[in-house]
Structures are given as structure tokens and as C-alpha cells.
């Protein structure tokens, strides 16, 4: 996760590392996603987007079974977080 930087002293490197760890911890505590390592999250979001588009018709017309609607309502909180995220707005 952390690469050695030979242009900086060991003390500086340790300090930077500690700051980075603190930031990640803070993000996790807030229930947010680390923006620096977001390849997988980006992919998941793309997937959710595709699924939302393909189930749009079912959800608006009301042709869908209650299960799909139930899941989306259950996960409304997660979806809300994602739609208001700084980076991955869907």
C-alpha cells in the first residue's frame, strides 16, 4: 500500500503515512468511501447504474414484483449516500 520514497527522510515518510492512515480511519468512521482507491467502487456503481436503467420501466409502470422495490427501499440509505457522494454521484 505504501511505497518507499527515497527522496524523503524516514521520519517524513512515517509522518505522511500516519496522516494517510488517519484520513482513511476518519472516512471509514463517517461511513464514507476512500476516494484514493476507488476502482472497484467505480465498477460497482457502474453496475448499479446499469441495473437501475434496466429496472426503470418496471419501477415506474409498477410491473415489478414487490421484491425489487423492497430491496431498493431497504437500501435507500446506501443509495442516498452514493447519489450525494463527492466523487461517485449516480
Amino acid at each position: 500500500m505504501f511505497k518507499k520514497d527515497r527522496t524523503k527522510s524516514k521520519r517524513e515518510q512515517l509522518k505522511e503515512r500516519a496522516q494517510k492512515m488517519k484520513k482513511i480511519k476518519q472516512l471509514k468512521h463517517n461511513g464514507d468511501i476512500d476516494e484514493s482507491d476507488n476502482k472497484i467502487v467505480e465498477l460497482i456503481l457502474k453496475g448499479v447504474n446499469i441495473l437501475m436503467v434496466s429496472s426503470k420501466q418496471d419501477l415506474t409502470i409498477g410491473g415489478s414484483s414487490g421484491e425489487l422495490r423492497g430491496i431498493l427501499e431497504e437500501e435507500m440509505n446506501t443509495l442516498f449516500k452514493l447519489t450525494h457522494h463527492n466523487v461517485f454521484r449516480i
Partner: protein
Amino acid sequence: MKYQGLFKKAEALYKADETKVSEHLAKKDKDVKYYTTMISQGTLSDKINALQLLVQKTPERSLHYLYKLRAEAKKKNRKQAEIAIKALKDLFINFLLKDGSKLSAFQHNPRIEGRDEPEIPNFDLIDAYFDHCIKELYRDFIMEALVPMSRDDLEYFRKLALEIMADLISAKPEIEEVILGLLINKLGDGSRKVQQHTIMVLCKLLKNHPVMAPVLTSETNALLSRPSLSTSQKYYSVLFLNKIAMLSGSHSEQTRIQLFRVYFMLFKQIM
């Protein structure tokens, strides 16, 4: 105990019948004589082609030729094994495996199960024995020839093993759950090229059999729930889930629901 005795009887009957058929063919058919010469005197490629053609002559009475082909497919020299593996694949798809159903083990064969020994005619015993042997041979072919090939050092052979497995599962349902597991497992391969190739092969399979989408999703989900998965393995697994969403998401609501569940579970894991 009952089935052990019956199995031995069936084995003896089959072997006698097989010898009779091959002796008859050797006398009457000129091609068979030529193929036999090729097996003893030809190059490796000639030998395998001759074996393949001999099996095609009488697929149901050619177990001894199939065992020879299996031995060639298990050879450590990959180039040699490749020819035999391709020949066996063609034989399994076109001549040996059933289309709509799976083969039964000897004791569970409907021709045998629940019947007393005197009631069972010899041809039923022979057929049940042949089905049993083909089932074992196929499993052995997958586990002992294709699985080692899918772990080869060279990417070319790993990709080839994937393609052969996908062709087999696409054509016949025999041990599909095992083969599917093996294919999905390759999403976690060490090489990116192989991971991408796995996705391509699985997408091809999904296009041919859209009904497989829920099974593929649950298998990928099982792979994703494994501990100590590297970032690249996770990345390619999620990439494949997206491909499923694109290819089958619009057709099946069940798949959509399943995919939503997996995605939300992954979010919760990450957050």
C-alpha cells in the same frame, strides 16, 4: 454388495462384447486395419487421429481406445497433450455425452436401480456399465487433464483450457456445476490476460445460455466472499458482474434482484 456383483458381471459382458465388435471390424473394415497400423507405426498426431476415428466407428464399444486417448491427454508434454485433449473434447461433445440429461452412475442407473438381477437383460447391464465408465472418464478428463492445464505456467495453455471447458459446458450439461466453478475460479488468476480471457469466455457462454445468469452470479458472489482476495481478483469479478448486468439484466428480474443484493453487500463491505 448386490451392485458390486452386478458391476463385475456387466464389466465382463462389456469386455467380451467390445472384443467381439473390434475383431469383427478388423476383419471386415479396411479402414480399421489402416487405423490400427497408424496406432502402432504412425507419428503421435497420426496415432491420436486414428484413435479418434476408431472411436467414431463404434462409440459405444470403444472404451479401450478412449482410455488410450486419456493417457495421451494426461502427458506432461503439453504440446502432445493438447492434440489428445482436443480430440477427446470433440468425441465427448459429438458422440459420448447425452444432450439433455446427465449420465448416471451404475447403481443409480434407471435400467438397474430397483430391479432384481434375473430381471435385468444383458444389453441393459452393458449400457449401464458404459454410461458409468463414460461418466468416470469425463470427470477424470476434466480433473486430471484440463485442471492441470488451466494451471500451466504458459498463458496460452491456461486460455486453451478455459476455452475447452466453456465449449464442453456450453454443449452438454454433464458435471456443469464443477466446470462452472472452475471457470469462475479463473477470474482470480494471477495474470490479467487470463482474467480478461475468462470474462470473454464466460460472456460467450452467457450469450449462448442466458438462463445461466443466476448461477453465474451466485458463483461469482461466492468467489467475492472469499477472504484474502486481491484487488485485481475483486476488480475482475465485479467487472464480470457488470457484464452479466448488461447482457441479462434487462431480460430477467430475478438476475437484477440477485445482482442488486451482491452490489449492496459489496458496498457494505467497503464502507
